[in-house]
């Protein structure tokens, strides 16, 4: 069942969302040559503590991984798709792209968002990958209206990505969000006709997150059980927003 939120709940989710935006906005400005992904982690953790929010990712367990995720951020560099771990050894260099994904729990409600940031100058092809991924998210957000269906969102991402010659990751999906980080429904970035296609209704809150590979869609998970990388080693980009479906259309909670 997809949990729907009333206006008071949406206001609380808005507060979580804005905190996530503030953190990501700060981290985005920090990214540069010579910065380590652990530097980002430290800043994010400090900002969450100052705001009195609980990091959503730290200590999060999945059945597949079987271990607790040890950081407040997922930092996924270049061929890493999602769930990369911040590390003091990972020094960002020119031409890298780094996906920063984070979430908080504030007053019981979650916010979840991600951006992919270029480090210095990047190749034209990589820039196109970032642009197409961001555009596919924006187009999908536009579909988050009452009366549309889940597949409108999935199909919009898939169409925009494949028509630009890139591929979507199938092993990881977006999700409903609220008092739990992962709620119903699962939101694949492609149309999976085997799954249900519920109608979107007022009060649903969705974390839409296209994960786009420059090369083949295949992915594998590294031995740390978390970091997902592209099978062919080519770059992958990832953008995410928490979006509420309202009578007035989509309300992106994780940006001002």
């Amino acid at each position, binding site marked *: 069942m997809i949990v729907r939120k009333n206006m008071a709940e949406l206001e609380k989710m808005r507060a979580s969302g804005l905190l996530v935006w503030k953190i990501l906005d700060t981290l985005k400005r920090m990214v540069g040559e010579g910065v380590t992904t652990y530097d980002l982690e430290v800043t994010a953790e400090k900002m969450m503590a100052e705001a009195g929010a609980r990091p*959503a*990712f730290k200590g*999060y367990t*999945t059945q*597949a991984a079987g271990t607790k*995720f040890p950081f407040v951020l*997922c930092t996924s560099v270049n061929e890493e798709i*999602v*769930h990369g771990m911040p590390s003091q050894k990972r020094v960002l260099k020119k031409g890298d792209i780094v996906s920063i*994904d984070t*979430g908080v729990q504030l007053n019981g409600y979650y916010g*979840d968002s991600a951006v992919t940031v270029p480090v210095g100058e990047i190749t034209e092809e990589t820039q196109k990958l970032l642009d197409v991924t961001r555009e596919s998210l924006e187009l999908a957000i536009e579909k988050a209206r009452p009366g549309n269906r889940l597949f409108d969102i999935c199909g919009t991402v898939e169409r925009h990505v494949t028509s630009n010659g890139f591929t979507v990751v*199938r*092993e*990881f*999906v*977006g*999700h409903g969000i609220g008092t739990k*980080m*992962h709620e119903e429904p*699962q939101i*694949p970035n492609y149309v999976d006709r*085997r*799954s*249900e296609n519920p109608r979107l209704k007022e009060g649903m809150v969705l974390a839409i*997150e296209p*994960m786009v590979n420059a090369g083949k869609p295949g992915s594998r998970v590294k031995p740390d059980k978390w970091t997902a990388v592209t099978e062919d080693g080519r770059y992958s980009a*990832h953008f*995410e927003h928490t979006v509420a479906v309202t009578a007035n259309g989509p309300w992106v909670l994780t940006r001002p």
Partner: protein
Amino acid sequence: MSEAARSAALAAEVIELLPSAAYRLRLENEDVVLAHAAGPTKANFLRLRPGDRVRVELSPRDKTRGRIIELLKG
């Protein structure tokens, strides 16, 4: 943080053969479902027998029906 895509496939055991390449299966949670052969189990005219272990993908709309997608060895 993205979620790992849920797999629709489950392990099951064949308990009864039915006409038209249909089978009655028992899932690991003891549910009994009706499933038909699909994919390699059908293309290769693989004859399943009671006791065989298979992987079955359940229909999202009717959780008592499914398609057998693979024969599990051993």
